[in-house]
């Protein structure tokens, strides 16, 4: 079809190309036939033809799978011309071929991609919020960006950014993590059957992958009611590029100015992350760094009581990496890193007995290498690393201070430093053309542990649809060194998981996974300031998910997890359910790209309430300050947790930039999810402390 359009001379012609049926942008080609110049649309389907001369020009717009459109543009005087061009689908006739492929099923592994993270309400600035959508993952608070996996403890999870361990990935008392989501391409979340390459974690390993090196100058700036964020990439040359990202939240300042929360200063945090990519004939080198800082100064008054919590923290991580593909079959990786963190906290409750402080310093550095070699369908991988880890601690742990919301009578005094090392070997091979098998063995010399630990791991996958998988393995981890015990022993978990995944149709799959974990050498507490490294526990559960991958307009996931977990903890010598364990978790997430450039994401989470020991009465001398709480010997559960978030964004293209206006409303039903209870001075009354109320956020994100 040809159209004749009369426009101005020396014009700029811009436009949007989209699919007429799906109303989706297309990265089409626009050929100015008479000038023999081709312009390519960006990911939003936008093209720009600058300084086009007067006259009638033919534009031919084409895209694979769509019918070509031809239109004529007549230019008479200076102007900017906007076009909207819809292309109709045209099936491509090809020879019928038989396609066979390997479906990569990894037991206990979950992935989320950048587009999904960006549209998940709340996850656009906190990757850990996205992780909570994964079955088997729970959080204990909207205020703390911490996550717990299959009934495990927080310190049993490891967070790696480009395979570098980050000691302080969380921001306490904040709604964000230390990572800039714009630097994250996707992530892999490994639960249970963790490959032998990764160790020193008995619950999970979160692998965050950064975005690829940019080939052109680009940046992303976003600002909303609580946070400002800037990311900029600059290619110095074809082989050298740099990326810098910074973010800072200012919710404390904003709410105080608006007078919404009087006398309460919420936390601030500030993160800077950078990466330099150098491409050489000897492989890709990269230098990365992460600097994060946070502070809290909360003074909350409740009738006749005042709770004061002051915290400051700083963390630094730097790394140098090397990636080399010797051939299609040979791959090398190596990196060296340094990471440290400092944190000081001072909390004061209603009475002079309710005080808690924490001084925490940790430092870790090391180097590791990894090599993979493929011989046909068989892959060998081996690697190893060495380093040193040190920690000094005094006072109570920050998580205890927050969850107990009361007096803590112990102080964890620790000052230790030791080397660590590990070696691993992995072999992946097919069996009978229908099974994929991976056998791995890992040896760890963990910090402060005298004897090396051996971790055999096995994964077996039946490659059909539906697929079946089985994974079994041992995992060891350095125990939390803050707890002073007579002799440290490695935390141990024996994990068995099995399940099936069925691809219902392209981009729609369902998965069921059962797991069982047995723990040994857990930390258990016995009275104030007495800890042992010989506790036990077990966790088992079933996880179901139905997932629609991003293909077309609609994507999302619904999942349900039921788990049973009992273990000793630093607060309980008996084997009991942990406070943060939620037996039932139902997650629902749906994202969609709508007509007119709108993107909508909704997220619903229903979960069992946290477990806690209520105060049932008191003991003491009586009088003011003379009372102490008596806790129930049995745990009870808080009311169920419910949170419904929504994200609505409108994409736009303006002044050469593309971006999005968005509104995110967290907890849109304003559900009063109970975090815990505060008690009055004689423990006869209590009040519930709620998690996040309805929080509306309005923001702007621009890519340039």
């Amino acid at each position: 079809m040809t159209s004749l359009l009369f426009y101005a001379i020396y014009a700029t012609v811009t436009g949007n190309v989209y699919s007429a049926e799906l109303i989706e942008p297309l990265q089409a080609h626009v050929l100015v036939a008479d000038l023999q110049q081709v312009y390519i649309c960006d990911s939003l389907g936008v093209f720009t033809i600058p300084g086009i001369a007067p006259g009638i020009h033919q534009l031919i717009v084409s895209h694979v799978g769509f019918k070509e459109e031809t239109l004529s543009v007549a230019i008479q005087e200076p102007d900017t011309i906007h076009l909207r061009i819809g292309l109709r689908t045209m099936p491509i006739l090809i020879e019928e071929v038989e396609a066979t492929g390997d479906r990569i099923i990894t037991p206990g592994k979950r992935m989320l991609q950048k587009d999904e993270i960006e549209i998940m309400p709340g996850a656009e600035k906190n990757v850990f919020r996205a992780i909570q959508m994964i079955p088997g993952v729970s959080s204990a608070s909207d205020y703390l960006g911490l996550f717990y996996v299959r009934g495990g403890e927080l310190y049993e999870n490891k967070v790696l950014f480009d395979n570098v361990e980050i000691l302080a990935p969380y921001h306490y008392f904040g709604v964000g993590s230390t990572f800039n989501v714009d630097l994250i391409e996707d992530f892999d979340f490994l639960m249970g059957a963790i490959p032998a390459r990764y160790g020193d974690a008995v619950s999970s390993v979160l692998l965050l992958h950064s975005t690829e090196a940019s080939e052109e100058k680009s940046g992303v700036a976003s600002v909303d009611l609580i946070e400002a964020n800037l990311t900029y990439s600059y290619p110095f040359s074809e082989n050298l590029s740099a990326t810098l990202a910074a973010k800072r939240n200012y919710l404390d300042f904003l709410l105080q100015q608006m007078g919404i929360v009087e006398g309460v200063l919420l936390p601030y945090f500030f993160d800077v992350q950078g990466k330099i990519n150098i491409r050489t004939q000897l492989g890709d080198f990269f230098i990365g760094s992460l600097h994060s800082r946070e502070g809290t100064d909360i003074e909350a008054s409740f009738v006749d009581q005042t709770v004061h919590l002051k915290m400051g923290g700083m963390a630094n991580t730097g790394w140098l990496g090397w990636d080399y593909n010797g051939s299609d079959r040979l791959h090398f990786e190596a990196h060296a890193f340094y990471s440290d963190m400092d944190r000081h906290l001072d909390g004061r409750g209603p009475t002079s007995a309710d005080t808690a402080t924490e001084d925490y310093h940790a430092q870790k550095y090391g180097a590791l290498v990894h090599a993979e070699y493929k011989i046909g369908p068989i892959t060998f991988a081996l690697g190893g690393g060495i380093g040193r880890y040190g920690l000094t601690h005094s006072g109570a742990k920050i998580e205890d201070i927050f969850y107990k919301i009361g007096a803590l009578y112990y102080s964890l005094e620790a000052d230790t430093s030791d080397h660590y090392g590990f070696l691993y070997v992995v072999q992946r091979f097919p069996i009978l053309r229908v099974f994929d098998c991976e056998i791995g063995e890992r040896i760890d010399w963990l910090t402060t542990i005298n004897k090396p630990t051996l971790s055999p791991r096995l994964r077996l996958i039946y490659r059909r649809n539906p697929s079946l998988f089985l994974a079994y393995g041992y995992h060891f981890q350095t125990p939390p060194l803050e707890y002073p015990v007579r002799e440290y022993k490695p935390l141990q978990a024996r994990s068995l998981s099995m399940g099936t995944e069925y691809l219902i149709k392209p981009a729609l799959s369902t998965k069921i996974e059962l797991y069982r974990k047995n723990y040994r050498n857990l930390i258990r507490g016995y009275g104030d300031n007495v800890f042992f490294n010989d506790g036990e526990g077990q966790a088992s559960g079933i996880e179901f998910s139905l997932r629609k991958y991003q293909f077309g307009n609609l994507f999302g996931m619904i999942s349900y997890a039921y788990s049973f977990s009992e273990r000793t903890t630093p607060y309980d010598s008996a084997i009991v359910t942990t406070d943060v364990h939620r037996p039932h978790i139902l997650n629902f997430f749906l994202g969609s790209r709508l007509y007119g450039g709108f993107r909508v994401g909704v997220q619903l989470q229903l979960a069992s309430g946290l477990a806690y020991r209520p105060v049932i009465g008191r003991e003491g001398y009586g009088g003011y300050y003379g009372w102490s709480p008596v806790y129930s010997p049995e745990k009870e559960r808080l009311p169920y947790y419910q949170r419904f978030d929504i994200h609505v964004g409108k994409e736009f293209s303006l002044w050469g930039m593309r971006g999005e206006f968005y509104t995110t409303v967290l907890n849109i039903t304003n559900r009063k999810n109970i975090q815990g209870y505060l008690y009055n001075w004689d423990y006869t009354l209590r009040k519930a402390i709620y998690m996040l109320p309805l929080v509306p956020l309005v923001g702007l994100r621009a890519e340039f």
Partner: protein
Amino acid sequence: MHAKTVDSTLIACRASKYAALILLASISCLDFQFESEYEDINGLHIEHVHSYSFVGTKILFNGSMGYIANAESLLVYDFTEVDAAVYLGYYAAYNSINDFQICDNCAVLVTDTGIEIVDISDSLPNQLSAVPMFFFGGSVKIDNDNAYVVSPNQLHVVDISDRQNPTLTNSYAFNDNIRQVEIDSNFAYVLVGTDFWVLNVQNPSVIIPIDSTSLPALDIFHPEAFFKKGSFIYFASYTTFAAWLSTCELTLNKDTQVLNHIVVPDRVRKFHMSDEYTLAVSWYAAFLINLRYPTSPCISEETGFGGIDGTIRDDYIFLLTPNLVIFEIKQVD
């Protein structure tokens, strides 16, 4: 196809801007709640009802009739209206009443010379029998028509099935003074000095000791009183710096274990139990004990008064300070 000149992107930008402004303005109207109102932990509170001027050393009830021991007199009041008790009369005993118990419209009074059995079916009590049996009679408990009377270091079993002719069935002597005795299901639980004894009294004429425990060995020093609920025994004791309530699980013929100790405001002298509540009375404090979890007793409500003795009837606490003060145990809305 006709090209459009309308700049829909700018319109969307303007609309989004206005939406953002409206949303920002509406934020200040929202009610951000981070905490709830205070609520009572156990749903109870104690409210003072009335204080009377009359005094006594012990009070018990038979229906709405209250009986108060005061020197040699057993005073009778009608407490149909709790805050408007009506004095009906008194019974004069031969000697000072050290303790008394009520059963089947009878009151068994213990004095320094023996026991007196009084008919209380009428508003004015009248004596049925008075028998000198022992000296310095202390506390008394009644079970199955047997009265178990303490007289310093002896436990006397008196058959009171014939109210007119009570007879001394048996006496069991200990090496130390008896502080308290409780009878439950054919067993007598006796606090003797710092030892705790369990006796089989199924056949009162043949008292068989079952078990004895040295309480200081359980870190229970200076025990003064106890009460039993189910298979748990709760001891009130004191040390130099604190008064305690210790929980033990009763395991006959095995080592008794202490499950926990809690600090209480004062040395408890008496315990009184109703079906719902347990009252602890000391000189300077009287308080309810929460036994929802038997292994973790705790203090639930305080009266703010101390006393000589007290009792619980329905939802009322009657406390002799020595004046009679009445409190109501109320449910919190």
